[in-house]
């Protein structure tokens, strides 16, 4: 995979995520996760090693974007890593060039990402560990909110996934990259 293209796409996803918030945010908090969609696309195409490192990088970007605890980088990175692992396990069963695959897997992988990150946030509040709970954080609320985020992400994943699939050549997936079930392009 071409890591320069990855950097550009990750940067674009980060900027769009932050910049389009006033337009596409539903209510006060529900918004799609472009970084997650990008991870799903990569997990469908790239080699396992590439997916793992890309997941950590995209998750770290998500961590930087979150504002509940300044400087906290880790929960989302590990959440995305878990999501990447799940995607790698499932991708043999999927059509990798379908926008529906990207949409549905955004929802499935997102659940794992949210579970892991929420667990790590919740761990901060355990008294015999760090004992420093995140202000106004509730694991149940985070998962409830996450469910709507993921539904919204799945919807947005269709047009975004289409664009990503169209950009396939630029990514230069080759060598050890994945060659599984694919429809003719």
């Amino acid at each position: 995979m071409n890591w320069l293209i990855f950097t550009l796409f990750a940067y674009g996803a980060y900027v769009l995520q932050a910049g389009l918030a006033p337009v596409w945010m539903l209510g006060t908090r529900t918004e799609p996760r472009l970084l997650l969609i990008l991870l799903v696309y990569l997990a469908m195409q790239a080699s396992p090693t590439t997916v793992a490192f890309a997941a950590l990088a995209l998750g770290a970007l998500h961590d930087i974007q979150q504002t509940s605890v300044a400087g906290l980088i880790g929960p989302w990175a590990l959440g995305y890593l878990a999501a990447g692992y799940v995607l790698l396990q499932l991708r043999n069963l999927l059509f990798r060039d379908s926008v529906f695959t990207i949409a549905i897997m955004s929802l499935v992988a997102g659940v794992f990402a949210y579970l892991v990150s929420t667990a790590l946030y919740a761990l901060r509040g355990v008294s015999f560990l760090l004992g420093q709970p995140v202000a106004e954080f509730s694991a149940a609320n985070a998962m409830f909110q996450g469910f709507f985020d993921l539904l919204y992400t799945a919807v947005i994943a269709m047009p975004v996934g289409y664009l990503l699939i169209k950009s396939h050549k630029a990514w230069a997936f080759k060598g050890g990259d994945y060659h599984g079930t694919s429809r003719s392009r």
Partner: protein
Amino acid sequence: MLTDTTTRRVLIGLSVVFVLNSQLNTRHLKWVGTVPNAVVKTLANPPASLMRGAAAMVKGKPTLPTHIDPAKSDDQLRRELVQTRRENLRLWEENAELIRQLSAYQAAAAVRGSETIRLIEAHVADRNPSRSNPTLELDKGSRAGVQQGNPVIVAADLVGFVSSDVGTLRSSVQLVTVPKARYQVRLLAPESSIHPDDEPLYVYTDATGEYFYCDLPDGQHDVRVGDIASMADDLYHQAYGYILGEVTEVLDDHPDDPLALDRIIIRPSVPYGRLRDVMVQVQE
């Protein structure tokens, strides 16, 4: 899945680092998170901020709801119109008084200040409403002269101080309402002028981060609702004279007990959640 042993080790190592980092306390997080945060936000915040501004313009501002009941008769509406005009006039007069007050503060600041101090405008690119560490992200950084500790204001009201997280084109501001903070202020009656000889007192941030408070002996103070808390803290000398908030409550729970303390509640008059533009007082 991962065949290469070295790669697997690197990945496991990174995962362990992230797990440990996710359980670090907030003080140590600052050390670890500052550089990646600064790099990413310096690169991404300017275009994101532009895009957000454009997006807000496209979406348009929400129309304010009116409270006029269409079922009301003409006479009722006329009466309400007269009342509203009177109220409008009263508010204009009050505003004029506040402007005079503001001029007094600005004059005091000018006397105290030097030529090396200037105010620069900054746009609020992002905000963190967390109670434990409420911050604002500004689109101005060290290139514009912003430094750690610079006070951030709106008119004469103090919003916060620039934190150590200063990038080239962005900076982070810690709000004055951060929990466990303590400031030295002078409480001034709105009609009075500034009395630099008045004894300053300490006010503390409430755990909710919504107001400041201090306890004064019952009957030994003349603090009233509407008094203004003006910064008089040597520790924050750059913010000397700026307004921290306004006294909104004087709670006397034991009026019969002469030894009881009155709790003075001071609320900031700046709506931190809706701030769009602020001024940063930088020093050259």
